[in-house]
């Protein structure tokens, strides 16, 4: 039973670490802000969630201490992660951050044409 519990804990924490390392490599390698927000929003959300789940299982199965606060933290991350990525990429588009030169299509330019003129950015 302890072996099973430890396997579960080690699995979750190592998967979380893997995804956080992927996030960091993505932040360094990807060319512009918008594609970096892909790596930052998805992998870091799942990575931190997996680490929190591992901690939860460790305290529940090995130490007999059920801590629902950790589960609330998982749900909170699940809700706020994508919204944070959305807000950051939207505000940087409005502030005038240029997309990478390889960007193929840009429908947003039409949408924001009037607004950007009004704000005189």
């Amino acid at each position, binding site marked *: 039973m302890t072996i099973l519990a430890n396997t579960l804990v080690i699995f979750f924490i190592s998967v979380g670490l893997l995804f956080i390392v*992927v996030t960091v490599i993505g932040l360094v390698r990807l060319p512009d802000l918008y594609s970096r927000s*892909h790596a930052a929003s*998805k992998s870091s*959300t*799942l990575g931190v969630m997996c680490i929190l789940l591992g901690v939860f299982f460790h305290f529940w199965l090995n130490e007999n201490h059920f801590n629902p606060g950790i589960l609330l933290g998982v749900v909170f991350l699940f809700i706020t992660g*994508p*919204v944070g990525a959305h807000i950051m*990429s939207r505000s940087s588009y409005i502030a005038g951050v240029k997309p990478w030169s390889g960007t193929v299509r840009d429908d947003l330019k039409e*949408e924001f044409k009037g607004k950007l003129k009004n704000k005189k950015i």
Partner: protein
Amino acid sequence: MSFQILLNIFLAFLLMFLTSNYSPSGFVIGYLLGLLSIVALRRFFKTRLYIGRVWSVILLIFLFIKELILANISVLILVLRPKLQMQPAFFKYDTELKEDWEITLLSSLITLTPGTVVVHVSDDNKSLFIHVIDSNDINETIDSIKNSFEKAILEVSRS
């Protein structure tokens, strides 16, 4: 829907008082019997039964988790590939959803799907502007995925 849940809890308390069994198990038994009677009387409600909606919410949660894991695997492959092959694009997607919470849910679902981040929601709530990381082969599959998301959300909000 909330009326049906309230009615079900009321029926559970009614059975607890009838049998004078004031324990959690008494509540559960009363709730299940009340659920049976609500299912039997479903013709008299104007909206559909709340059980179906609860079931579609559960399906939506599992869809969310599955998409999160798939998205992370695709980001992992993209980042660790020795040569970066990507064609980012912003494209416009017209949605049929009306309510604010539906659009919020759809955009956070799209943000967690492989290779897409919602950048802007237009002022009339009719179209989403999505940044996609690889536009040449993903466009059509993304459309099909989003149709399944929209269908799942519409399934929840259908009265």
